């Protein structure tokens, strides 16, 4: 019997506090698998956000630093400047990265910081109880848009991958989804490429990962994956937006 799948040693044994079926757990695992396969677990420094993944440093078997809300790219910039040869990444939710931290992410990309940002887009503020995020979909009911998000009041959902792709300093931008085994496998490939971009010192990398939040969407974990397919993927198209020749 040969192993086809074993839980990566990139994840610590501690159980997560995530809700049942929350795909944060899959996203963590994919990043750690990719680093482990490249032998980089001991060479990486991650920056955790404020949000449900605030305790990512309890789960990821690498050196990590906690950040203030939205400021992970600024802290990662500091780490990069004193550790020019480490792999440095941020892991951030959509409240963190696309709302309070928009300035930090845009300017990290603009400066072409040689870091990677993994952006978990679950279309809601999870940790604080399901408030509307800039990424919440039109008509989506949240605790702060009880009749559904309205364009007249809140505009249309923000497509961060497309926005970041317009910035010259960002050399790798891809959007992936965790709604199915096939898409999870594709997400892993994109994460590997993003890490390669850093190994080759090519510039800023950004991977937007569509994720679920069954608890705050008010559905079962399985229905949440269906909701992603039916509602999120049509608005947030999957695929690579930008990739340097060296990692194609």
């Amino acid at each position: 019997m040969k192993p086809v799948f074993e839980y990566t040693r990139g994840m610590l044994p501690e159980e997560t506090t995530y809700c049942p079926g929350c795909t944060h757990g899959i996203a963590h695992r994919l990043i750690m698998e990719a680093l482990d396969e490249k032998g980089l677990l001991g060479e990486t420094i991650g920056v955790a956000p404020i949000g449900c993944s605030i305790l990512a440093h309890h789960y990821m078997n690498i050196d990590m630093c906690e950040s203030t809300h939205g400021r992970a790219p600024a802290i990662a910039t500091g780490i990069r400047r004193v550790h020019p040869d480490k792999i440095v990444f941020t892991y951030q939710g959509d409240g963190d990265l696309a709302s309070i931290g928009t300035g930090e992410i845009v300017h990290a990309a603009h400066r072409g910081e040689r870091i990677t940002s993994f952006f978990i887009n679950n279309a809601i503020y999870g940790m604080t109880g399901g408030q509307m995020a800039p990424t919440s979909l039109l008509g989506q009911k949240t605790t702060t848009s009880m009749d559904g998000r309205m364009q007249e009041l809140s505009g249309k959902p923000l497509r961060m991958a497309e926005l970041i792709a317009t910035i010259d300093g960002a050399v790798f931008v891809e959007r992936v989804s965790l709604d199915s085994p096939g898409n999870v496998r594709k997400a892993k490939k994109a994460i590997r490429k993003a890490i390669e971009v850093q190994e080759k010192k090519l510039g800023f990398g950004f991977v937007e990962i569509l994720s679920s939040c069954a608890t705050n969407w008010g559905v079962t974990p399985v229905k949440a994956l269906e909701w992603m397919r039916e509602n999120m993927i049509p608005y947030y198209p999957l695929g690579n937006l930008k990739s340097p020749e060296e990692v194609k």
Partner: protein
Amino acid sequence: MAKGLVKFNEERCKGCELCVSVCPKKIVMLHETKLNSKGYHPACVIDIDSCIGCANCAVMCPDGAISVYQEDVEKSDE
């Protein structure tokens, strides 16, 4: 067709059923009576002989509760 073996770490399971929903052979389900110490019905396989070792269940498990092994047996026409 390759033959598979799935092992569950029942204590880690949160009963989310993502594994149940993606098994192409429909042989994963939540245990009907057993509970783990968190109070969830852990996932299990009801017909291991049908498992093809595709690892879809493990790939979707957010909680690292599943390991998958595979044995290459003679190709059938399945």
